[in-house]
């Protein structure tokens, strides 16, 4: 019997500090046993339980794309015991990973469609996975137009800055990067909150267009009416939720919304699905 609680051992390959407040670091992890890597087949939108021996586990969205081989990537906000320990670890250290867990963005449905990615703050990790996946030369023909609206408080709080710049330069993805405010005279992108930029830049909703939203509750609250005005049906608005989790496999009982477990039945739900579920998240 396979033990779903037993993490695969991994080694920290690289740690990148992402933001100016140094609270967000990206970890590149490499499997100690190549066989484990073969078993860890994931899709963009899934998450994993990162395990630090002696401290515990944290559920974190996978920021690397399945098209990036040989390593996994996670961007971690320093919040509690495990994430603070992770922030103090160094390349070469051994930790563990369980997964992949949860559903993913609905890639079978998104095939052949326009995809509008809307992200805010540090909730851009699985969205990065989705973008890298879609931009992979093998996959890019499977999607029509790709729009990305991504905002942070300030330029220094944006994740993956080099990649954002590289995507800006491409003509097969429409980038709309924004910050809440900045005094940086060299800032050449948008200034304004994500809902405002969405209203200005997002294409109108139609049968062929899906929006994927990840961000803080306040961003989601004000973006949703914008998408309504733009004509997006609720079954075309895709969201990824967060919950306190332990087991990650639908057994420990804490992450439910109604009868759905965010860890196993989610974390990705359409707004149409969420409308049928209790507002308890």
């Amino acid at each position, binding site marked *: 019997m396979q033990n779903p609680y037993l993490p695969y051992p991994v080694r920290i390959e690289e740690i990148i500090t992402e933001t100016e407040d140094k609270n967000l670091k990206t970890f590149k992890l490499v499997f100690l046993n190549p066989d484990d890597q073969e078993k860890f087949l994931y899709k963009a939108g899934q998450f994993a339980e990162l395990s630090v021996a*002696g401290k515990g586990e944290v559920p974190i969205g996978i920021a690397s794309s399945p098209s990036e081989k040989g390593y996994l990537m996670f961007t971690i906000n320093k919040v509690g015991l495990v994430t603070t320990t992770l922030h103090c670890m160094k390349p070469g*250290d051994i930790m563990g990973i369980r997964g992949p867990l949860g559903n993913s963005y609905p890639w079978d449905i998104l095939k052949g469609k326009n995809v509008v990615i809307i992200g805010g703050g540090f909730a851009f990790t699985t969205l990065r996975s989705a973008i890298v996946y879609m931009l992979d030369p093998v996959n890019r023909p499977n999607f029509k137009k790709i729009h990305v609206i991504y905002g942070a408080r300030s330029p220094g709080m944006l994740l993956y800055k080099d990649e954002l710049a590289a995507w800006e330069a491409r003509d097969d993805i429409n980038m709309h990067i924004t910050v809440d405010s900045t005094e940086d005279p060299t800032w050449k992108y948008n200034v304004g909150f994500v809902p405002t930029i969405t209203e200005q830049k997002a294409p109108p909703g139609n049968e062929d267009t899906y929006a994927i939203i990840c961000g803080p509750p306040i961003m989601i609250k004000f973006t949703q009416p914008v998408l309504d005005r733009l004509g997006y049906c609720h079954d075309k608005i895709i969201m990824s939720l967060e919950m306190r989790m332990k087991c990650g496999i639908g*057994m420990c*009982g804490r992450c*439910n919304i109604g009868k759905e477990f965010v860890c196993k039945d989610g974390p990705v739900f359409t707004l149409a699905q969420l409308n049928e579920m209790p507002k308890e998240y």
Partner: protein
Amino acid sequence: MKIIRIDKKNWAGGLEKLKGSYRLFGPVKDNEFHNFKRLDKDELPDFNYFNTRLSPKSIIYPQSEIMLEYELDENKENHHVMKESKKDYSQRVVIGIRPCDASAFLLVKRNFDTPEYKDPYWIRSYEATTFVGLACNNPQATCFCTSAGCGPFYEDGLDVLLVDAGDHFLAKIISSKGENLLEAAGWDTETDADEQIETMKQEAEARITSFVTTNKLKDKKIIDLFDAPFWEEVAFACINCGTCTYVCPTCWCFDIQDEAYGLCGIRMRNWDSCMFPLFTLHGSGHNPRSTNMQRVRQRFMHKLKYYVDKYNDGIQCVGCGRCIRLCPVNIDIRKICNMMNSYEVQVTSD
């Protein structure tokens, strides 16, 4: 099904014989209550009880259980790599479990034994165990098993059903596991007592005077019940002590924690409870169930609606009545179940 007659004078001897090949667990007097514990040599289960104070769920699913272990000493090979802890899954038997508590394991099994994931600790424990039930000849006033999907002589979840018939037990063999056990104990006097057991069963069922109504739960919308106006009132007296979840045979929620001592450590799981605010508290400080009312609603909605919808086979409750007897503020699941079952959304017309 075969029925074996066990004269009470042969009871102790058979049990001692069993101890050679099984670990025995049974109800024993524990201060003023009964609880299940491992039976030592020459120790007999004490059947002079209605039901145990705590459910026997801890025999399969301990309150604290080591899952994994690891070394933190960087000079050792495989340091910081988790491995499974060695466990004793040798065969064992629970003697004298009430039929409601045994059927509770079947409800809980759906959580731990799923098509996608198997919880190896729960499943191995469960599979290593033979359940010898003790039929309830005298149910209590808080028992409502017959309307909660089982009954005082209920057989699903048991390997043997014991019926106390005065100077002897009638042991009805329900599974091959049960048959093996009776053989190992040397009890082999077959008897024809089907009718006698059936009569006793009907008498016991007739003594149950308390019921829940669950027939309409399935058809209601989750959101309607969730937004029903009675939750504030239901939760008003609750102090979130968690006694109900602790004593419940069908509550399974758990927490996972690491504990390290020096250079080695364990990952363990502990029973947890939806009654506690920490159960759902996010790292950010946000808590989707921050209020007493939300947590009480979660407990009842889980047992009486989410479970019903998810598995389409009744409520997540066997009617043992422990939460009713032990709630310090007299919250009664029967009353709440009936409120939920009879709730209709008020349609207001302007």
